[in-house]
């Protein structure tokens, strides 16, 4: 018998409340449908009444986690529109900020993933190391989130030479811990059993459904905006694009964890090579025209389109966040999976976290049972516990480390 489980509209995992209608037969998912925009803020429309400098602050508030990705994409678009070449030092500062953000965003995701599968040690560890990065941000910009570092034509704030030592020290502290963390996580048989082969996405599907970022890379699609459309200082430092095959939750976790190491590499090189010079290039006027800015956010490609009519406010700003492109991949990934795996698959594309949630089980059109986040999490945790029992000889290895 088919049963429909609405997940949402107040949703456990996605930053904007949205509704997933998951159709299940017994334990297995057979179909999924999606409805969104319960919290549409009309940012694109608001942007039509703000000046270019103000919009940077506005788009910074699109997402609290990747709060520097949207400003970079928007500034790229304005610079593309006006033909501005930003100073070298600004490029390096942008790269440092964007990579620090990638580290903290990936660690945040990994902590949440650990929480969803009932591995609270992973959660606590991951968030403990994330604090290092948040503290760095506080020293550099004055804020742990929403750093306000960007402006069209350059950066708003400098990273002072006196800060270099602290950044390098934090990277030195983070790298061995990340290596240990990655080893511990990828060695754990229960985590492997929970993540491996769950929510598979084939390379063909990843391309067909236009996925971006870590989701595409985990399925073997070799794309990365930082390499393909170089912006900031990414073409002046050496680093690798991480790809995996299979596109399951494990592959996504591996891509993100290894990207943290690449980010550390980029930050070190940027600090080493940081050139002297001015921070901004003045943009005197914006002529009628259009510009496209793309940026590799932690979750994937972030796209901004700006059309100017020659006045001080734009005619149109279009924003496409990476999750928008990654959501269609759910259709390929859910079918045939267990209900207990819904949480981790929904989480795997790294949508941002939102406040409250409820899940109602409906049979024959009437609500018979209401699941809240706790109930769904418990289902997920139970499955981990059951796996642990089956693997009792190796279980708990992570805790002993």
């Amino acid at each position, binding site marked *: 018998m088919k049963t429909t489980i609405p997940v949402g509209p107040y949703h456990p995992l996605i930053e904007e409340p949205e509704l997933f209608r998951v159709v299940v037969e017994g334990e297995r998912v057979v179909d999924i449908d999606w409805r969104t925009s319960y919290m549409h803020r*009309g940012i694109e*429309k608001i942007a039509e009444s703000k000046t270019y400098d103000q919009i940077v602050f506005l788009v910074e508030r699109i997402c609290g986690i990747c709060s520097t990705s949207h400003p970079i994409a928007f500034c790229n678009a304005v610079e593309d529109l006006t033909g501005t070449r930003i100073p070298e030092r600004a490029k390096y500062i942008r790269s440092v900020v964007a990579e620090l953000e990638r580290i903290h965003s990936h660690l945040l995701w990994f902590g949440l993933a650990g929480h969803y599968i009932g591995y609270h040690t992973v959660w606590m560890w991951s968030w403990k190391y994330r604090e290092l990065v948040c503290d760095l941000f506080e020293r550099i910009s004055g804020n742990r989130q929403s750093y306000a570092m960007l402006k069209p034509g350059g950066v708003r704030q400098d990273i002072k030479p006196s800060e270099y030592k602290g950044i390098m020290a934090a990277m030195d502290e983070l790298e061995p811990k990340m290596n240990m963390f990655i080893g511990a996580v990828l060695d754990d048989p229960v985590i492997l059993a929970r993540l491996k082969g769950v929510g598979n996405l084939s390379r063909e599907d990843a391309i067909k459904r*236009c996925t971006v970022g870590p989701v595409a890379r985990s399925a073997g699609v070799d794309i990365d905006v930082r390499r393909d459309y170089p912006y900031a200082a990414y073409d002046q430092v050496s680093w690798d694009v991480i790809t995996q095959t299979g596109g399951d939750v494990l592959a996504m976790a591996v891509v993100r964890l290894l990207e943290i190491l690449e980010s550390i590499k980029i930050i070190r090189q940027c600090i080493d090579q940081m050139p002297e010079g001015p921070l901004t290039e003045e943009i005197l006027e914006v002529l009628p025209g259009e510009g496209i800015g793309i940026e590799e956010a932690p979750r994937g490609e972030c796209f901004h*389109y700006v059309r100017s009519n020659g006045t001080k406010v734009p005619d149109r700003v*279009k924003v*496409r966040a990476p999750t928008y*492109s990654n959501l269609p991949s759910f259709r390929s990934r859910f079918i045939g999976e267990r209900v207990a795996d819904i949480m981790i698959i929904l989480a795997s594309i790294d949508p941002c976290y939102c406040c409250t949630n409820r899940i109602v089980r409906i049979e024959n059109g009437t609500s018979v049972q209401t699941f809240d986040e706790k109930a769904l999490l418990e289902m997920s945790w139970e499955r981990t516990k059951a796996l642990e029992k089956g693997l009792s000889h190796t279980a708990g290895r992570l805790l002993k480390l």
Partner: protein
Amino acid sequence: MKIVDPVKTLQAKFADGLIDVDERSSARVYVSIDPARVTDIVRFLFEDLGARFIIATCLETRAGMEILYHFSFDSLGVLVSLRAVVPMPEPRIDSVSPIVDGAEYIEREIADLFGVEFVGHPNPVRFLLADDWPEGVYPYRKEYKGQYPYRTEEELEEVREQIRQRGTK
């Protein structure tokens, strides 16, 4: 298919479908196309040349609704934007969703916010607007000044009753 210059390939294949090609820089190309040929051109870009569909953008201009389809050739680092202008007051264009899976949501979004009709869309239902949003009010058009249609308490009750009867699927 190994592509070296997607724009030249496109020009050779669709001599009649392209109105104007503007190579703004080495990484940005804007191609104005005949709206009637949109599905052919998108199919060629997406299926034959292997371009990645990024997103579509709609904006209102004096000439009509301007829809841009942004495609990326990641291996070449070239962003190709197809520009199709559809005339007002009844903007209408063929849907590309049957070809590009990732275009389904954005076409529904544009239909909601700008009132563009996508002919042949597989699932042409509301995407962003609320269930009780009135027909024919398009919030991202220039004429819309942010007014939410005001309702009296009786009218609200009527809407609630409609939603109750419709039920949740």
